[in-house]
């Protein structure tokens, strides 16, 4: 999945889970301050994003996310982490 596709998928999930109007969700939207998503919501969000990545999601990968774009980047990295050479 490309980052654009991941973003659209994120918008869909945010809309379904929190009833946020899709037009309010922009890449630069801050999850906590602008979209009112707290640490408890984040757990649900990670569960719902799991199918996109297709493997176990470590909550740590999302520790530093602040914006929707951060989530997209984190997911993108997780999906493509297979391509990285295995550790020696």
């Amino acid at each position, binding site marked *: 999945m490309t980052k654009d596709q991941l973003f659209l998928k994120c918008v869909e999930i945010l809309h*379904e*889970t*929190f*009833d946020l109007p899709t037009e309010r969700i922009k890449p630069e939207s801050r999850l906590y301050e602008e979209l009112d998503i*707290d*640490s*408890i*919501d984040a*757990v*649900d969000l990670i569960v*719902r994003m799991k199918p996109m990545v297709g493997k176990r999601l470590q909550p740590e990968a999302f520790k530093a996310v602040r914006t929707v774009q951060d989530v997209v980047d984190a997911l993108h990295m997780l999906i493509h982490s297979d391509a990285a050479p295995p550790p020696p």
Partner: protein
Amino acid sequence: MFDRPWRIAATGFCFFVFGAAGMLLGILVMPPMLLLVWNAERRRRLSRLVVHHFFRFFIGLMNFVKVLSYELHGVERLQRPGLLVLANHPSLIDVIFIISLIPQAGCVVKSALVRNPFTRAPVKASGYITNDTGLGLVEDCGRALSSGETLVIFPEGTRTPLSGQVSLQRGAANVAIRCRKPVTPVVITCTPRGLAKSQKWYRVPPKRMHFVIRVYDDLQVDSFLESGTPEPLAVRRLNEQLRSFFEQESVRAAP
């Protein structure tokens, strides 16, 4: 004519009694309990019972010295086991009222009370839950409820502003939805407002405070989860319903 100075002095006296009792519990009651009651669960029950009776006495004292008067409605509903009690929070002493009505209640309190020397010992011995951990808080509350405890939460997280505008943190609604636990709403009104967030204790209101404590029918949460509504969305809807309920009822219930 001497009503106001009297109430200022009486309020100060009550505060002194409260602080002294908190310290004495920490020095004279809790340490012997640690020695004599080895079972942690029994110790906690005993500690909660001591706090409950002290709070009953304390409300009686504040009534006796004419700092406040009060009336209770529907409080027999609080005698059932294993409730999730959610109350609005107009004044400093709301938790004292609620705990004085329930012999064995867990409670979510602000973590500052664990650091306060006057409240530290009873709060720790009673196993009250401290409120500054987002996800951990919901888990702690879930554990308490699943073991059949009654849990008291003030979902506003801090006292209601003088404007009366209620805004709720989502922690309590999260507990209700995720544990599928009906909510027992309690509306507290204090007229005229006193011991509110911005009010110093010695700025007593123009007349004796009158508290009304009203316990309502349980609010079931199942309907919020119908047709596969995601939990976070159900939490938001329940929270909004509770918010407007508290705001409207506290206006309606005030004499």
